[in-house]
């Protein structure tokens, strides 16, 4: 296994008025399972459809309708579990979580409280070169999403759309192993990356594809280590849960606010009430959701409509055999095989399709040079071009590899290569043919370069005199020669010839 080794990051310390405090954070991430149909019905999961058009009678809670589980959702949950190196439970079961809300027509959410499909796993969250937090996963269970209420279309009414009702979610529950706001955001980012590699969740946070409930508590330095040793939660402070956040930035801001709120209460001699809170990004504060407290008695019981979910080890093994290379492995391989820096390898492996593109470019080309061209030139150009994604790149991996091999073959200089890249980007075509057709080939013919150098020297006697006193002025001559040859002269050859002529 090509795992990299890491040191744990330092926990974030917040200085209160009286003493230092540390944060302890655990997350429940709700990831929408990437499937065509819902968890228990054949209605579509497509985002942005007409309201209430992706709804089967079972989703609408019509009497007599029975749920039938979508095997695709089960496979995706298993795939996610395997990607997080987690234990897969061959036996799991569904329970009803009972509460009333207009966007929950059944009056209960089908979830997996007692027997989740995935057990303990882990995620390595990088926080810089050679520094990473190992976050333990407690469980992943499958559950139904609720519908969507819209409150701003009418002053007196709320509008309910059931398109999302019954869409499968994976709730990924972490242990309280996260020690700061940045780590929390990086953890969500890493889960998103892994699930996008696996194809189990699109991770589109704006569309609500990926949402997080964040549990935050504060403790004095040293207390957390006692908890880790004993796994006894009494060493930690009382936690509050901040619900339903769908942006990395808000997650960080909410944790920071919430930690400071708790510290202020504790330092004033108060106690923290365990409660559910909501983050308000407009005011940058968290507020108690009192209405949720009363409803907290969910009266879970096994769902009588569904038999336990039993899966075969062979089926799980088949899914395991089909897993793609995951981000950690890919990054480690890029560093070892292509000699990339940690940073470049991270950038290139952030998205699977970027990594695939790079590998095609680097196939038979210089790895580091390929990384530079993909990251600096191509990504930079795509960003300027309406923030296009790699799949929309007008330059194919083969074309970019062509440009790179023209550089390494000494056919064109780095400077000309950039011009060539722009031509290929805007006009297309075969790089080698363009170079020939437009006379962009680097002049390595020393006779031609010598002639150009002689001409510059003959035209600038005053400069030649100065250069004899100050050898640094040779650079000026090199520049003039490059200009005279339209940038096509081999810079190395020009340097040598200029030095020789001036020196002689």
């Amino acid at each position: 296994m090509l795992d990299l080794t890491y040191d744990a990051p330092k926990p974030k310390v917040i200085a209160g008025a009286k003493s230092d405090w540390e944060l302890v954070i655990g997350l429940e991430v709700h990831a929408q399972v990437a499937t065509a149909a819902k968890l228990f019905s054949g209605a579509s999961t497509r985002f942005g459809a007409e309201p209430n058009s992706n709804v089967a009678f079972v989703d609408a809670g019509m009497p007599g309708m029975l749920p039938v589980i979508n095997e695709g959702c089960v496979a995706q949950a298993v795939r996610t579990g395997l990607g997080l190196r987690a234990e897969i439970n061959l036996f799991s079961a569904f329970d009803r979580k009972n509460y009333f809300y207009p966007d929950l027509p059944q009056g209960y959410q089908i979830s997996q409280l007692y027997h989740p499909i995935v057990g303990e796993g882990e995620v390595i969250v990088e926080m810089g070169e050679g520094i990473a937090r190992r976050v333990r996963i407690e469980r992943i269970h499958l559950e139904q999403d609720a519908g969507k209420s819209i409150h701003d279309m009418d002053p007196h009414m709320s509008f309910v759309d059931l398109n999302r009702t019954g869409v499968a979610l994976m709730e990924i529950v972490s242990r309280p192993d996260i020690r700061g706001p940045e780590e929390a955001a990086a953890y969500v980012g890493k889960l998103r990356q892994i699930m996008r590699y696996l194809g189990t969740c699109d991770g589109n946070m704006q569309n609500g594809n990926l949402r997080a409930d964040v549990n935050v508590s504060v403790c004095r330095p040293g207390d957390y280590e006692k908890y880790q040793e004993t796994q006894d939660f009494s060493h930690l402070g009382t936690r509050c849960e901040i619900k339903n956040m769908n942006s990395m930035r808000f997650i960080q801001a909410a944790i920071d606010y919430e930690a400071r709120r708790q510290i202020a209460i504790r330092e004033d001699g108060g106690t923290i009430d365990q409660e559910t809170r909501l983050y308000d990004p407009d005011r940058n504060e968290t507020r108690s959701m009192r209405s949720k407290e009363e409803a907290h008695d969910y009266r879970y019981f096994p769902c009588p409509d569904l038999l336990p979910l039993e899966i075969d080890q062979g089926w799980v093994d088949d899914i395991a055999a089909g897993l793609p290379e995951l981000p950690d492995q890919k990054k480690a391989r890029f560093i070892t095989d292509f000699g990339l820096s940690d940073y470049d390898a991270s950038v290139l492996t952030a998205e699977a399709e970027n990594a695939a593109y790079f590998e095609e470019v680097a196939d038979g080309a210089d790895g580091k040079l390929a990384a530079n061209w993909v990251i600096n030139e191509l990504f930079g150009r795509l960003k300027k071009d309406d923030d296009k994604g790699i799949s929309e790149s007008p330059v194919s991996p083969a074309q970019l590899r062509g440009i790179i091999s023209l550089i390494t073959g000494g056919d064109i200089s780095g400077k000309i290569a950039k011009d060539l890249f722009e031509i290929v980007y805007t006009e297309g075509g075969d790089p080698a043919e363009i170079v020939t057709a437009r006379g962009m080939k680097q002049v390595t013919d020393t006779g031609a370069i010598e002639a150009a150098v002689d001409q510059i020297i003959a035209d600038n006697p005053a400069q030649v005199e100065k250069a004899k006193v100050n050898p640094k002025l040779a650079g000026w001559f090199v520049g003039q020669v490059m200009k005279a040859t339209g940038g096509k002269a081999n810079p190395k050859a020009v340097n040598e010839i200029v030095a020789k002529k001036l020196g002689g």
Partner: protein
Amino acid sequence: MSIDEETAAKVAKLARIAVDEEALPALAKELSHILGFMEQLNEVDIEGVEPMTSVTPMRLKRRKDMVTDGDQQEKILKNAPDAREGFFAVPKVVE
């Protein structure tokens, strides 16, 4: 375990069932009676007996991940007391 009137009122509220004050004593008694029967069942020794999840040996039925349903907005909204612009319209609920 017996259910007092307060618990009965709470259970009714959680289930969104309106129960008249006068009906509570009888309801509490009835619920206690049910729980009493459960307790009687608890006396049975079930050491080593697997929980029975189905009367007949059956495997959970599965469906393929295919879109086979939906596109019936009109039917879905047909029983709604109020529907507007394709949405169910309900009295304002906001946190």
